[in-house]
């Protein structure tokens, strides 16, 4: 605990160093280097703790904050898992930023807030009372808002920041009310008091829904996701990786902390709501991602998908926990938390990769990239690992979490409620659909950006980025492979958090099967071994290569592409990002996005070019936000009139308000 607090203090200090940039010549190096060290130290501390027993709880009360409350901090297994994710990605993004942020036009708009942002996230994770939690949450929101505003001269960025601020405020307001309800029952803001006095079913449900709204808006649950694809691309790439890879996970932490730890016994329908929302989010997020041409927007929407997958896991865990099957709850919970770590890893690779591509080519539009595998071989290799991992291909880490999640879904028939039995089948189908769509999405992303021929001069003249940036991309790529091949390493670290949230570890009911086998006792005899699969693939590939090169012709001739005899000299003849998405758009997007394609074909003999236009809309904007904005505007116009009343009218207004309040008090007595 003390070491984490020291790390947070050091981060705050580095934020101040960042502000003092004009006096300090080398503030850039100090801040990024310092952050890399501090985050690395914090991650290492937590790692050691998790590798050990991990069950002990450390508490610290700082004499700051509200006079009668003080700031209560607490480090337990659940916080530790998320602290690891935050600080690992924080360390990597500091290393990446060391090189990347040199190209920043106005470093003063990034440098001070980068450490503060990470400090805010850390503080949320160790908060032990509602006051510290909300303060840290706001701190995290505001510092990331300032980071989104980094390139404030662009109209689009300002709009993104505005939407983000509104959504963040909405989220915090919901959380504030939720904690108010919880604390009102317990008579104190401390988590310990809330835990000791769980509220009854109705207030607990209201609090759960408010937390879902509050944390869900920060995590990017559909339909509260609209800020995310605007804000994530607007920030610099290493900040995008942080916002997308870990800030959304801090929101997930809030959800877990309240629903699994603070409110007492959960009700089954909370889990059902979570799982359904998660499934909708997963499918919608990946469909949006499939239609995007902007690399960073695509990645941001893919984060929405992954949050959906995590929330499905949480929902299943909640359902199983409330149904009294802790072993299965632990299975689903492990899948969700492993996916939290996994997503932090592969989303860092991909956002850093996008940053590297942006530095090298100056392009963010998929249709202006291509052929980068030749120009940036190392970035291309690591991004391939990231794309394969996020598409849940074995033997990488994404698949392990997905496998466990499917195993949890398969146990749906054990539940009593028939709504859940049918619901689980549908959620399983949506989960499978989102996984398949994710693979299509990342084939499109990787194939268009890195393969084929360069579609713009920028892409044609790209240069590989420097070793510092590459190392920040390489480390998570290696970790993706390690966690995928030996998933027990990561799962063992999650076990204490599992016992804390669901009451049981995944392997507590037996079914260990050694380090190589993943055989949860709750998965009725099913097992998976990333290690064995990796080794078999390796041996078979070596065998195939050896046999082919021993007995087959080894000669290679280079020639112009065959392409059925048609050689087109222009790279624009290749399949583009939008043409790749077209069949999928036809199958999936017509109804959901109201996608309309119009082709303006000139008559024979006309010389004007044919034009193809595509129109797509986000239904969340049309159906939810536009009406809400209109309603707020209308209300504001009505209330505006209150500013121009006479004294008499004001006095009578106050009088009637007083009478109303007295009547309310009388009725409630």
């Amino acid at each position, binding site marked *: 605990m003390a070491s984490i607090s020291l790390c947070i203090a050091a981060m705050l200090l580095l934020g101040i160093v960042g502000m003092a940039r004009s006096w300090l010549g080398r503030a850039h190096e100090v801040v990024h280097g310092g952050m890399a060290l501090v985050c690395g130290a914090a991650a290492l501390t937590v790692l050691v703790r998790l590798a050990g027993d991990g069950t002990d709880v450390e508490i610290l009360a700082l004499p700051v904050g509200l006079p009668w409350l003080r700031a209560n901090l607490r480090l337990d297994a659940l916080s530790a898992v998320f602290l690891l994710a935050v600080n690992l990605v924080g360390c990597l993004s500091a290393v990446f930023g060391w090189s990347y942020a040199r190209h920043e036009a106005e470093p003063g708009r990034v440098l001070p807030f980068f450490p503060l942002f990470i400090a805010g996230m850390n503080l949320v994770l160790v908060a032990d009372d509602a006051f510290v939690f909300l303060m840290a949450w706001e701190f995290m929101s505001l510092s990331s808002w300032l980071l989104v505003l980094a390139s404030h001269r662009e109209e689009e960025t300002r709009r993104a920041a505005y939407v983000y601020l509104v959504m963040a405020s909405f989220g915090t307001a919901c959380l504030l009310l939720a904690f108010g309800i919880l604390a009102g029952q317990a008579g104190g803001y401390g988590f310990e008091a809330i835990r000791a006095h769980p509220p009854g079913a109705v207030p607990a449900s209201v609090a759960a829904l408010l937390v879902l709204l509050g944390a869900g808006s920060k995590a990017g649950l559909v339909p509260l996701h609209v800020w995310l694809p605007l804000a994530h691309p607007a920030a610099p790439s290493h900040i995008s990786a942080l916002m997308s890879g870990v800030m959304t996970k801090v929101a997930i932490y809030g959800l877990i902390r309240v629903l699994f730890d603070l409110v007492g016994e959960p009700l089954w329908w909370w889990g059902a709501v979570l799982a359904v929302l998660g499934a909708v989010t997963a499918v919608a997020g990946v469909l949006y991602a499939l239609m995007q041409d902007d690399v960073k927007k695509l990645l941001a929407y893919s984060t929405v998908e992954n949050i959906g997958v995590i929330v499905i896991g949480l929902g299943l865990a909640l359902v199983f926990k409330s149904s009294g099957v802790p072993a299965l709850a632990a299975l689903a919970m492990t899948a969700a938390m492993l996916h939290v770590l996994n997503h932090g890893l592969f989303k860092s690779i991909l956002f850093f990769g996008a940053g590297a591509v942006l530095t090298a080519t100056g392009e963010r539009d998929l249709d202006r990239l291509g052929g980068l595998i030749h120009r940036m071989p190392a970035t291309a290799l690591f991004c391939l690992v990231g794309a394969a991992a996020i598409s849940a291909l074995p033997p990488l880490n994404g698949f392990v979490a997905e496998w466990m999640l499917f195993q949890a879904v*398969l146990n749906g028939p054990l539940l009593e409620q*028939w709504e859940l039995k049918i619901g689980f*089948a549908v959620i399983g*189908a949506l989960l499978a659909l989102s996984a398949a769509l994710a*693979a299509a999405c990342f*084939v499109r992303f990787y194939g268009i950006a890195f393969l084929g021929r360069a579609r713009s001069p920028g892409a044609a003249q790209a240069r590989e980025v420097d070793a510092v940036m590459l190392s920040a991309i390489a480390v998570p790529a290696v970790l993706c492979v390690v966690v995928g091949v030996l998933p027990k390493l990561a799962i063992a670290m999650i076990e204490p958090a599992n016992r804390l949230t669901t009451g049981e570890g995944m392997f507590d009911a037996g079914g260990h099967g050694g380090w190589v086998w993943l055989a949860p006792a709750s998965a009725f005899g099913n097992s*998976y071994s990333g290690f064995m699969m990796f080794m078999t693939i390796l041996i078979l590939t070596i065998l*195939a290569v050896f046999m082919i090169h021993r007995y087959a012709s080894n000669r290679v001739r280079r020639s112009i592409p065959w392409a059925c005899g048609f050689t087109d000299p222009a790279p624009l*003849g290749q399949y583009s990002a939008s043409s790749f998405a077209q069949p999928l758009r036809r199958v999936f997007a017509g109804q959901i996005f109201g996608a309309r394609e119009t082709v303006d074909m000139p008559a024979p003999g006309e010389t004007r070019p044919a034009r193809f236009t595509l129109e797509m809309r986000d239904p969340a904007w049309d159906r939810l936000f536009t009406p809400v904005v209109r309603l707020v505007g209308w209300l504001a116009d009505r209330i505006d009139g209150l500013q121009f009343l006479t004294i008499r009218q004001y006095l009578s207004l106050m009088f009637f308000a007083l009478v109303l309040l007295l009547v309310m008090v009388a009725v409630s007595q």
Partner: protein
Amino acid sequence: MIFVQALLAGIFQVVQMLLVLALAPGLTGLVRVLKARLLGRRGPPLVQPYRDLSRLLRKDVVLAENASWLFRVTPYLVFTAIWLAAALVPTFTTALALTATADLIALVALLASARFFLALAGMDVGTSFGGLGSSREMMIATLAEPAMLMVIFSIAILVRTTSLSLIVDFMLAGGVGLRVSLGLALISLLMVAIAENARIPVDNPATHLELTMVHEAMVLEYSGRHLALIEAASMLKLVLYMALIACIFLPWGISEPGEGPLDLAIGLVTFVLKLASGAVLLALFETGVAKMRVFRYGEFLGGALLLSLLGAIFLYVSTGL
């Protein structure tokens, strides 16, 4: 005793892998011969696919100028992934060494990996045909893969496992009987198998008409040993799907751990017979239907997904009630 069993499982595993590899071109050849006969042609000899493969292996690779390392690595990865997937499906015995390594979900994911890399390779050279093939292949996969997973769910709910060997054991023990859900699952899995193996009505493996092909467009730039590997992989995939359908829905004849050599021989013979009858049915089906338009695939595979989901929901509701 355990050591002997493990050793036997290892030997059977190797035999299984060699068996599927040896039978795969023969199965494709058989389907071609049967189709030709049904159309009133004489058709190529049964061994033609073996000859094609060995001819391809002896030819030089003609590589497009801007093909990257990914293009050259992909055939090996695709071949290995599908070979490994085929090794996991019990064909003549369930006593296989790799049984515990992966279950049905991992098998689907292995096939997805092969497809992922093949689709990427299709886009690597930067021709419009490659992109076209990749894009359509991924579109087909986005519907076929969930349908297949839902079929697996149905089976897993019935049998309480996703491990293929355990499924075969359970089915052989006769604990399931006839079920509506199993029927729905079978139809759905057949539809998926047709789509995944690039057969009529979804794709035409014999065509080189650019705008109607999917799989062939994607691998258009491959030649020589690379093409041989990819062809072999797609032949293996056909065996894999037939073996999968056979071992789940018609497991009779598959020998179980601890059974004698006679049972193994029966297992081998029945497996070859199952493949042959699969080839007959496939040839009959393919000569009987016409190829669909590309944008009807969504409806076809959407139907498969719906059927499998229905099957799973029936089971979810019926178990435990």
